């Protein structure tokens, strides 16, 4: 079962220019913190303190996309790109095809996305979920087009690197990366640029939900899994359990994921056959997630001691657990009777946070913990801060998911209670006993718990930011000083 994994050993002679990695990862860490700050703000206003801040630019509707775009694009996608710039050359045994092209890509990527994201408060929202970036800003900056251009340049760079590789066999992380690159190009184009090519109304809704689900399933999932597939064996210094299993996972994702968009509009004004199709394919998605979980846990089978020693391992394995949770929630939420209770409630928000934060952010954080000391050629500044970072994130994430999932489920049950009985008269009576506003009021303390958990998570990530900045900018400490001050030994592999 262990065949190609032995090939993951960096050749001593190749010089990797990691400029591209730094250009993507360093800013992404800052935006992680900004995104979470905005997240804490919108969890408080209007959910916990609705009466205090209310203005054209600070209302929830205008600030929410700032949080979402910060986290999805400025943090997660950017960090994933940076980590891809790190592991693809190393898996291929050759340096990145063109460092200069990567620099050009970064120079297009960052200003475009920063402008697009922070303009939301000034009324530039495109109006479609996850496609909020404006088409044209200030009448002449083609934001979405520039993102596509940057992505295509990134794609070219990576494909050229792969084409010039030294090792014949391709590790699973390379498969996932190639898939993600191609899928992203198509998905982004469909969801952002092609919406107006179909008739107005439900056709566009359908296309938007196709885009929304492929964003998570064919962009963040393969990139996140590629990162996990590389860094789990890497950080624990063990070969991957099974290549064959990972291929099953890859192809089942490739086949099933793009059919499930309609599960976002179950029971809605959407053709029943399309809804049913999405349910069936959603259930089939149990297959890839079990291949991934098995593979990762089997890889760690005799190495669990590393969990206590290495922060990246902790983030990776808890991330894997959250991946299991979110990929069980997802298919089940597509079922019609489950959907009746969970949809349109905070349960959905909990689900999206388990996926993007619990799974993929944890994977990316693990990757960054491994990569930064390597590329700055210095050890991590503080192990204690890293431990605290993990603990606070783990505690905060558990709290957030429990609060959102429970509160959301209760609200769904409350709405469904209106349908107790046999006639409209009875339903109306139920409705008169429990108004819509009351179902919201009952969520108040769950929202407070969510805000508290958000603050805990933010605190953990502030420690992370501090740790990273110090690792990057402070002078390296020599071995003698390290031993005399009883600092942690240099944990870098091959240091």
């Amino acid at each position, binding site marked *: 079962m262990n065949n190609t994994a032995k090939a993951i050993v960096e050749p001593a002679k190749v010089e990797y220019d990691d400029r591209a990695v730094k250009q993507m990862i360093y800013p992404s860490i800052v935006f992680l913190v900004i995104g979470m700050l905005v997240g804490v703000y919108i969890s408080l206003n*209007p*959910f916990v303190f*609705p*009466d205090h*801040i*209310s203005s*054209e630019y600070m*209302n929830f*509707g*205008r600030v*929410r*996309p700032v949080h979402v775009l910060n986290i999805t694009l400025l943090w997660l996608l950017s960090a994933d790109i940076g980590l891809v710039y790190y592991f693809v050359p190393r898996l291929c045994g050759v340096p990145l095809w063109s460092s200069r092209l990567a620099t050009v890509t970064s120079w297009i990527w960052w200003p475009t996305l920063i402008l697009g994201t922070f303009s939301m408060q000034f*009324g530039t*929202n495109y*109006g479609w*979920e996850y496609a909020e970036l404006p088409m044209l800003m200030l009448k002449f900056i083609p934001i979405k087009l520039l993102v596509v251009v940057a992505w295509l340049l990134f794609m070219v760079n990576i494909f050229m690197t*792969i*084409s010039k590789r030294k090792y*014949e066999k*391709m590790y699973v992380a390379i498969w996932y990366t190639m*898939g993600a690159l*191609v899928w992203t190009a*198509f998905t982004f184009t469909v969801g952002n640029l092609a919406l107006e090519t179909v008739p*107005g*109304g*439900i*056709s*566009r809704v*359908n*296309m938007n939900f*196709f885009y929304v689900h492929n964003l998570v399933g064919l962009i963040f999932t393969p990139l996140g899994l590629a990162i996990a597939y590389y860094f789990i064996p890497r950080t624990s210094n063990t070969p991957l359990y099974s290549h064959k299993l990972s291929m099953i996972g890859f192809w089942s994702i*490739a*086949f099933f994921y*793009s*059919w499930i*968009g*309609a599960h976002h509009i179950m*029971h*809605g*004004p*959407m*053709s*029943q056959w*399309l809804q049913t*199709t*999405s349910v069936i394919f959603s259930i089939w998605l149990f297959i890839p997630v079990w291949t991934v979980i098995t593979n990762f846990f089997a890889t760690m089978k005799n190495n669990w001691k590393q969990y206590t020693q290495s922060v990246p391992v902790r983030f990776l394995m808890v991330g894997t657990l959250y991946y299991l949770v979110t990929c069980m929630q997802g298919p089940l939420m597509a079922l019609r009777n489950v959907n*009746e209770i969970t949809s*349109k409630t905070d349960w959905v928000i909990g689900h999206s946070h388990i996926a993007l934060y619990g799974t993929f952010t944890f994977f990316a954080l693990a990757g960054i913990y491994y990569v930064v000391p390597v590329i700055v050629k210095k050890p991590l500044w503080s192990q204690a801060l890293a431990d605290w970072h993990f603990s606070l994130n783990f505690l905060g994430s558990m709290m957030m998911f429990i609060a959102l999932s429970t509160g959301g489920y209760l609200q769904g049950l409350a*709405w*469904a209670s*209106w*349908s107790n009985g*046999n*006639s*409209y008269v009875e*339903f109306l009576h139920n*409705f008169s006993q429990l108004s819509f*506003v009351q179902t*919201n*009021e009952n969520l108040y303390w769950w929202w407070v718990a969510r805000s508290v958990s958000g603050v805990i998570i933010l605190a953990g990530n502030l420690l992370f930011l501090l740790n990273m900045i110090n690792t990057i900018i402070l002078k390296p400490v020599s071995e003698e000083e390290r031993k005399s001050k009883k600092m942690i030994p240099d944990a870098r592999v091959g240091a």
Partner: protein
Amino acid sequence: MKNQKQSFFHRLDKSVVWTIVGVLFLFSTSIVVTLIAPQYVDPSWTEPSSIYQVQMHDVADPNLYVNAAAKRTETLQFVHHLKEDYTLLAFVESASTRIIAPPHLEKYVTRVGAPATKLTSKLLLLRKPAPSTSPDGFLASVVVEQLQKKLQEKWVKANPGWQEKRLAKPYYEIYELYSPGGTEAFSLAETDGVFEHWIDKNFQIIDEAPQQRYHLDEGVLYVKNPQEYRVSPHQIGSIEGWKFDPKGKKIENVEELTSPQFGFMSREQLIDLGEHIFAIEGCWYCHTDQCRTLVQDTVLNGTPTFPAPPSSANEYIYNRITFPGTRRIGPDISRAGVKRPSREWHKAHFWAPREASPGTIMPAYRHFFDKDPQITSKSPFGVPNYRFEAVYQYLMTKGTRITPPTQAWWKGEDPIQTLLIIDGVKTTGKWSNVP
């Protein structure tokens, strides 16, 4: 460059090529089946829900103007843009309204007790008769005076002893029907800017030949008793304004009406703008726009007597952006035009949501209002501006155009009979309009 290209394709091994082909093939299949096929398989995705919806969108919305910048007038004003051979007009008498017409225009008037309403697309208007002689020698003012006397004498005969009973002698509104000349005119609208006059029974269109495709529909929108829209300037303090004045200046054309001086916008523009504001303000993050095929949704969106019919794809065909929503922090808006029709409620709700809807967490949208330091308007809030009117008109299209008003679900005429379905009478709970 060519060398590089050659070496790239040389180095691409078969497995990569097959992977890319495989990925693209699988992806394309899903795109064809889930994205492209449905609009051809499912007619409801592209067909309108009723001819009323089509006519409102094509005929009424572009030709109804609202002075959404209500700063310089005291009241919101609605103006129809009437076009010869396009807009259907009706001149209908009622118990207190009479119409006199020169002989060649007699045939266009629908008298009291007439069996069918007469409609025409010829451009005619009503006015209080001018004291001077009209060009064709028809002395309208004289005729009106005589008619007024005659009607009042008739009433007196029918109500002897009216003085002892302290009844008031009625004053009849008598108008003259006349032809203004030209091919377009503007009239003060009789409607409230949300519903238009619609007729689908007992009507006939008196034109030589059908002038528009929509005149052949089973039911048509029409403008009732149009009077010309004229304005005269006035001044409130230092603010110059204008008001409706039947004896004032005529509006020449649409450019003048929509100029900054008058600030009118068509309802079509307002609805588009409302949809745009709904997008940029992020209203869709909290409010969904779909009444799902679930009992709890039909109850949430229904009236005290009738459940709301679930949303069908036909309702959304004229949207540029549709906001079905993924989170319901605030109530669903897909039937807001029926559940919350009052303009005053919406003013209160955007100005101070907690006043209109106690317990809500919705923030205030005060930029939908202009400051009113001298409190010249009678409103307790700021003066609503064009943003407010845009969002209001957009919301009023929700749930009000599924069927013509004569077959409205809130009047119990629901064509899919939602009430019978959820009471378990009609079928086992499946909505038959959802394919």
